[in-house]
């Protein structure tokens, strides 16, 4: 799965995250308490997945593996982002 649980409440996004990953991600974010999202190994992100992240606002462990996302989308995110694991 390109979206899977890591340790300590971390959700890891790997490789290519497509539209079908949006729902599992959403569910995990809602089930875990204080979840964080590690997207360092994700190098392609579908809009639906990004939208879930924008709505749920989890702390992010980055930088995002997709440099385009890091450059153009991350600066506009308005919540604090955790930089390290």
């Amino acid at each position, binding site marked *: 799965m390109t979206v899977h649980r890591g340790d300590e409440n971390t959700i890891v996004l790997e490789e290519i995250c497509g*539209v079908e990953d*949006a*729902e599992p*991600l*959403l569910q995990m*974010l*809602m089930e875990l308490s204080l979840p964080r999202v590690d997207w360092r190994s994700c190098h392609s*992100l*579908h*809009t*639906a997945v*990004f*939208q*879930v992240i*924008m*709505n*749920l606002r989890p702390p992010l462990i980055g930088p995002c593996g997709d440099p*385009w*996302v890091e450059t*153009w*989308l991350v600066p*506009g995110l308005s919540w604090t982002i955790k930089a390290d694991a």
Partner: protein
Amino acid sequence: MSALGEQFVSEARELVAQATDALLGIERDGVSAGLVDQVLRAFHTLKGSAGLLDLPAMVLAMHVAEDLATSIQGGGTSPTPPVITQMLACLDLVAGWIDAFESGGDLPPSAGNEAREMSEALRGVLAPSGPAAAPQGGVLPGWAVQTIQMHHATLRSRAGVGELFAIAYEPRASCFYDGDDPLQLLRRIPALLALRVEGANIPPAEIDPFACLLRFYVLAEGPRDALAGIFRLVPDQVQIVDLPADALHAVPEEVAPAGAHTIVRRLINEQREMLQVSGPDNALPGRIGAAGRSAANALRHARLDQLADEVNEAGAAAQVDADAGALVAALAVALSSIDAQTSSAPVATAGNPDATEDAANRWIRVPEARVDALINLSGELIVLKNSFAHLARRIESEGSQDLSRAMRREQEAIDRLAGEVHDAVLRLRMVPLAQAFRPMPRLVRDLSQQLGKKVQLVTRGETVESDKAVVDRLFEPLLHIVRNAVDHGIETPQVRKAAGKPEAGTIAIAASRAGDRIIIQIEDDGRGIDPEAVRRTAEQRRLMAPDALAVLSDEETIELIFAAGFSTAAEITDISGRGVGMDVVRKTVEQIGGRVFLTSRKGGGTTVRLDMPVSIATARIMVVESAGQRFGISMDSVSETVRLTPNRVSQVKQNEGFVLRDRVVPICSLAELMSLGGQTKTDAESRLLIVLEVGTKIAAVEVDAIRARTEAVLKPMQGLLAGARGYAGTTILGDGTVLLVLDLKEILG
């Protein structure tokens, strides 16, 4: 004049000033969305008010001016100096009209012709708009402006020269089902400059992960075809907008997000506009009713309930009468009230802060007379607390210990309180110096243009505050000094270049606070004052005998420009207008308790220094005694006190005198000055002298004793003595006696 007329006059004057500031700002720093908007709004509002008061000439002129401003905003006309000059000329015309309206209730009869000529002139500088210079009639969509605002830092550093576009991409909610991935499309944009994403804030439980509710706003470089090509499959979800090249140049920080107060204001104004448009007669009551309700609602939203009620009443009446007049009038009043509340102290910069709902920034307009009355009361409170202190001391010496201690405590408390009240009240009259500085840029600009000189004006310390009376009277002297600097001080560009100076001269006005004084320094880097030239002029004007002149040092010679009669009408160039003499400047400044100093270096520039009191309501005085009587001496001109042994005193001509650090200081006795008779003390030990300096003149007044130094509220001389020279006023001492306070400047002068 009616209340409406008065509102019109004060609102119009403020608008003219704001538009002037903004135009000068544009000329100095380049065009920016905020400044142009300010100019546009000013003309627009002036037009509306003129329409309301039925002043067709002004409506005409403002209409054309507004068109010109719109053209500048859309990029069709470039704000070159001739354009700015023409718009400033238009504002001058309006200022004259406002004055005429204030005194006569209407525009002058020449207004019609003047308006027509001005319209011609304005149209003359209005260039035909470029092709598609700006989208949608010159109005950038809000989302584009917001995106520019958020990313202006990045944009400013952009070096590219390609065409600029703003793109709004709002994918359909169902786009995921169609296999769309909006981010994929956005990635394809080759020259992306800025990206903003907006999403819907939905509670997590209700999120549908497969509905796309994101909206994307982009700034990118062209070519347009490439951009359109990327989105060719979703044209209904995308809007591409041309951006004028200068949309990114200046930082549009002044474009405030639509705060509620701004919307309220715009909405009320819109009702006024709307009611002036004619529609079908049978729809008029409905339109009036809707306008009234809209405006009243807006006012209620802004918690201005009283205004809301007034508008409601006016609207209801207007609807019944099927005549919008009463409602339009009520709207104008509401608008002025909002503006009066939100316009802060005079704006020093062109970046006029938009009205915000910040409760900490609310202002009240109060008639000056009421503030003065409060100051008088507070002054009397000070006098009272002084007498209380005196009483406390008496009790200490005559009464019981306990009682006197208690008394002392209360007296100290009252002392503090009275002092605080007095300070607070005086602060009511405090006004930033910016008021006096405000017309300077315009003056410098016009004058330097007329004289073919390049001059730049720099100011500092506009926020330093002083008593309104001081600031009001500061304006004229400042004006003269600056005029002189441009006229006589700054050389022409050629002369400056030959002298190795930058072509543009600089005039720097700096204000600062030093204790209870305000220092204003006007410095220029011009040609300075040539002592030789002054000597020659002084000879010509027979201000002094030639041998007396020859003895003067360079500094003393330069001081002669303050002498009455130094500048004659012939000296005053046409530019400077009426008789300007520095003697008038000095007199005016001294009248408000200030002093003027001047230093100059030939070839290097001139510096004029004004040393002003912060407030003229209280004065520092020294209570002295001579021949058994007490007087107060205003400490304005006192520079020091000296105790002399008799051997240091010598005869200098008819007077006694002594030497103080290389200067000969004549001595006069206060007892003699005041014709007190009595015995002159022949104290062998020492003589007490108070040294006064007025300009370069120095003198010492001999007294028997110095009793106190205190801050006192001076009451100016009244009745018969009001015009008598040498008296600064009276004050009441703690023991109830009236102290006569002398203004020795005048006596020695």
